[in-house]
């Protein structure tokens, strides 16, 4: 049985009907991984033995009529910055190559409790710093739709694994577009929840005030299922929000007739690829067909988003990454006799150049004499961007915009020009700065067959609305089932 392209809810139905077992599904997944991994390289570490045991345990529960979780027996992949006991959590960095955490991230613990079978840890930009998965210490991941192109980043491995049929769904993290941008590049659905919706405990921090864990999946319904599992307050994360978690799956299949959809004019800038504009136009017309009113709106501070983001995120990162000093865990430069050399040489050898660059920017932005001009200024502009969104959501149910300005770019195309790489997050980062939820879903292909994405944004904790609108749009947009030619 060709199960590797089935959705989570399809697998669930087959399992429930007794037409397959978790072990069959999981073994098929590993066969698929064996077949394509050499070309795609989605994973840093596989957890085959534990996965097969978990699959058998799930099958036993089902046979014994024991209590089943909402993801029982379903194979899931994890971005390698989600801590897992007993398996290295590398963050794509040489520093953590052999680091085995003595704890599970809360989101991982919730997945396990829901019965999920965890297949392995996916590739990513080092410490989530990148938009192409090219900064990983463990080599690049390729876009399953075109192996010469990047899968996006930083959750590139989580996106490519879903697109290439190497897992049913995955978790990633989104600090400035790191779920939505790779989802768009790989032709799948990716959801960044509201800041505080999902516990960050055990998510290795890049920029703590921006990071959120979210699902990447084949359709909106799968994202809804995963979000309901991982969301909720956690006593170990005081920034997680104590609001009840609805069953987001209930929002799938509902009409959006009469809704107001905002189209922000600032997202249609010079340099945007015409194919992207055409895809968004198509989504707008579908929304209208569904009975929604589409209205142009303004988010006037959008153009400052990247500048503000690339001050705030590196500033927080420079502090978050100070703990990687080679004393308690991780890499240590051998033979150092002086403490200062131990620090400097360990960090110089264990961090890649993009991580160093961001640590440098962030250290500079916080340093004496520059704090006001950079960090504080950027934080004030963040307030203004949040106000833009507050104003927009006073009159709109959701906002519709492109996820990225271009389709997936070629490997190596932007690696020598960090600023150009940063600008590929221009449409994604504002949602992180404001803390609002966003979802990217497939919206057709370029003439060359590269996937295109469209993004929906909603107000705080309005994931339900986001899923309702995204599911309606997905259904109406759907014309043909395409798979990457692997």
């Amino acid at each position: 049985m060709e199960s590797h392209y089935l959705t989570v809810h399809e697998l669930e139905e087959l399992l429930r009907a007794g037409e397959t077992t978790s072990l069959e599904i999981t073994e098929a997944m590993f066969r698929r991984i064996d077949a394509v991994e050499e070309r795609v390289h989605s994973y840093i570490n596989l957890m085959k033995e534990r996965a097969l045991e978990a699959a058998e345990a799930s099958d036993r529960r089902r046979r014994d009529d024991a209590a089943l979780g909402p993801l029982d027996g379903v194979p899931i992949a994890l971005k390698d910055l989600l801590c897992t006991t007993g398996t290295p959590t590398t963050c794509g960095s040489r520093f953590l190559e052999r680091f085995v955490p003595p704890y599970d991230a809360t989101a991982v613990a919730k997945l396990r409790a829901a019965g999920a079978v965890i297949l392995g840890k996916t590739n990513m930009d080092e410490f989530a710093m990148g938009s192409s998965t090219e900064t990983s210490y463990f080599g690049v991941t390729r876009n399953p739709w075109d192996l010469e192109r990047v899968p996006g980043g930083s959750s590139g491995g989580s996106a490519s694994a879903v697109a290439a049929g190497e897992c049913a769904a995955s978790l990633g993290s989104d600090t400035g577009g790191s779920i939505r941008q790779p989802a768009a590049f790989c032709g799948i659905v990716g959801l960044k929840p509201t800041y505080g919706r999902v516990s960050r405990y055990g998510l290795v921090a890049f920029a703590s005030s921006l990071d959120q864990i979210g699902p990447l999946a084949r359709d909106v319904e799968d994202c809804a299922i995963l979000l309901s599992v991982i969301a909720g307050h956690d006593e170990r994360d005081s920034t997680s929000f104590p609001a009840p978690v609805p069953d987001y799956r209930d929002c799938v299949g509902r009409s959006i007739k009469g809704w107001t959809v905002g189209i922000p004019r600032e997202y249609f800038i010079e340099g945007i690829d015409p194919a992207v504009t055409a895809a968004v136009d198509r989504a707008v017309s579908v929304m209208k067909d569904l009975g929604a009113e589409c209205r142009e709106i303004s988010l006037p501070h959008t153009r400052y988003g990247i500048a503000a983001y690339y001050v705030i995120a590196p500033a927080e990162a420079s502090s978050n990454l100070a703990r990687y000093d080679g004393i308690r865990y991780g890499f240590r430069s051998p033979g150092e006799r002086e403490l200062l050399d131990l620090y400097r040489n360990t960090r110089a050898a264990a961090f890649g150049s993009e991580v160093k660059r961001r640590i440098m920017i962030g250290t500079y932005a916080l340093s004496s004499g520059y704090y006001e001009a950079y960090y504080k200024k950027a934080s004030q502009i963040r307030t203004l961007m949040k106000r833009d969104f507050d104003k927009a959501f006073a009159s709109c149910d959701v906002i519709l915009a492109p996820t990225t300005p271009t389709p997936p770019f070629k490997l190596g195309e932007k690696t020598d020009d960090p600023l150009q790489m940063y600008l590929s997050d221009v449409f994604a980062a504002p949602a992180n700065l404001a803390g609002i939820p966003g979802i990217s879903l497939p919206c057709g292909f370029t003439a060359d067959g590269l996937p295109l994405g469209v993004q929906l944004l909603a107000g705080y904790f309005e994931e339900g609305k986001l899923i309702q609108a995204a599911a309606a749009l997905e259904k109406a947009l759907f014309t043909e089932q395409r798979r990457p030619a692997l």
Partner: protein
Amino acid sequence: MKITKDQVSHVADLARLTINEQEQELFTKQLNDILMYMDMLNSVDTTNVEPMTHAMEGTEAFREDVVRSSLPLDAVLANAPDDDGASFKVPKIIE
């Protein structure tokens, strides 16, 4: 110039990163490009605008003062690059 080679070297010191001459050269150029781009922030009037330092307000999480079990010592030291079975070892520090 937004940032000089000397400043780059000072920042690398603060961040405890050894950088070679080539990196110093490259970072100086790249950081200048990036900081020039960030100059656009200065065109925004932010008088009386509170900085936003947390994405979410309204959460308040206290922990009660109740002891929870610590990590077993072998787990504490399991990932350590150098230890003596009780403590982490570092080159001698002169105070």
